[in-house]
């Protein structure tokens, strides 16, 4: 793979990762957010594939396949099934800060990500290293969604964006994680989503809604 093509592909998948995260914050409909999450997973798998092809590593390509199945098929499938069971029109009605403010916050967080990843940029001239701020920005976006949304599903989506960010940084800086570690982390993630899904269903059957603000007070 030529250097310029490699740089362009890394830039493209990084751009899709970032754009899908911005759109997740922008949209209110949870089913649209789940679809965007699948797009983001696809971009992450594409990034891993590009890195794998560039380094000629079969292990990375296997990891890319793993990421693809888990983040494009399994997790969004689980989430959309849960959303479908919840009802046709599922919306994040009242986030703690309104959409305009969170969009402005995104631009500030992006700047912060570029500032804090400065020490990492001295690692080399590789396009992959230059794209590290994208991963850190995704982590910060995930935290923002986790902190400002009230609905349990939205928080779950924020958690998954956070995880995608951590994965992006790991792949870009370390040039891939050993397959066993990746397998363990993926299983962990799957388990967390499954548990949270069951928990959300329980919360809903107890309280009639999955708004987590209802859980801040003790009741009989």
């Amino acid at each position, binding site marked *: 793979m030529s250097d310029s093509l490699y*740089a*362009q592909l*890394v*830039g*493209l998948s*990084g*751009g899709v990762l*970032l*754009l899908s995260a*911005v759109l997740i914050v*922008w949209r209110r409909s949870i089913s649209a957010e789940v679809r965007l999450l699948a797009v983001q997973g696809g971009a992450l798998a594409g990034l891993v594939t590009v890195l794998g092809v560039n380094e000629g590593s079969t292990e990375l390509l296997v990891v890319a396949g793993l990421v693809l199945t888990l983040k494009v098929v399994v997790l969004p499938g689980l989430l959309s099934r849960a959303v479908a069971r919840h009802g046709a029109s599922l919306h994040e009605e009242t986030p703690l800060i*309104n*959409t*305009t403010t969170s*969009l*402005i916050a*995104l*631009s500030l967080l*992006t*700047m912060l990500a*570029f500032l804090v990843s400065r020490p990492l*940029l001295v690692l080399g*001239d590789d*396009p992959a290293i*230059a*794209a590290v*701020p*994208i991963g850190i920005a995704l982590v910060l976006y995930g935290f923002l969604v986790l902190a400002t949304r009230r609905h349990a599903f939205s928080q779950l989506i924020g958690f998954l964006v956070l995880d995608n960010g951590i994965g992006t940084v790991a792949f870009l800086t370390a040039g891939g994680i050993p397959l066993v570690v990746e397998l363990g982390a993926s299983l962990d993630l799957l388990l967390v989503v499954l548990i949270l899904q069951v928990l959300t269903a329980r919360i809903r059957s107890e309280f009639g809604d999955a708004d987590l603000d209802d859980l801040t007070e003790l009741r009989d």
Partner: protein
Amino acid sequence: MNAEAAVLALAQVVAMVSLSPLLVGMMRQVRARLEGRAGAGALQPWRDLRKLLAKETLQAAGTSWVSVAGPTVLIVSSLLVCAMTPLLGTVTFTSVPDDLFVVVSVLLIGTVAVALVGLDAGTAFGGMGSSRHMTIAALVEPTVLVSVYALSIPVGSSVLSQIVAARLDDPASVASPVSLLALLALAVAVVAETGRLPVDNPNTHLELTMVHEAMVLESSGRDLAWLELGSWLRLGALLGLLSTLLMPWGIATELSAGGLLLASGALVAKIAITGALLAGVEVFLAKLRLFRIPELLAGSFVLAFLAVTASYLVVQA
């Protein structure tokens, strides 16, 4: 250099004055056909202008000189924007280049002039329209500046002609993620700035949600003709700028009769394509609630901002 630039500016003004009413007529016709109506034909805006120019200009009681001067200021600023935007060629004045910041500030002068015209008569509708117009303008300007700034980083200059010339030299840069993000943000900003759907519905009258129409309610005759032509010229120039940045082909880098003819043909084709596309998309859109508009514009600002950060990324790589 300066003589050539003057010829080019004149050619651009003539082209835009003759084209932009046709563009508006064509967009209305596309909408009418897609909605199953016969439509008034693409020449209708020209007929409207002729009719308005022949009519007597009446001033509402209690208006000041602002109502007299406003339409002239708008039309002059729109003509200046047409002269300065690189629509036909990239030859520019050496002392006053078509810098991004100059073009945006001239645009803003026109925006303020219309808003003052709306306020001057002291009617409820005019005031409402002006306040909405200024709110939208204040939210749009940063997006326009930041998105064109993102395009200017690889070129190293904020002069629009040089940006267009650089894109003409290197067509691959048009399809880069940075330029696509910036153009997407710029498209949303242009739609908001020119008062198209989903921000403002250009076809309605006497509705509580109107923005542009509310400001020109008290104008008549020649004043109304200048206000309408001025806003059509803005639409034409901004769409032309957007399509030139997206498809820089055909634009003249040196001044020659053949080059100008070719550039005019390319400009007609480009504006027609973008205009038809915009009108076609508008058929499927409903007007956004006024309080959701900041959300849309904040979104486009974030896209532009990401384009800027990403362009630094690409420059470093």
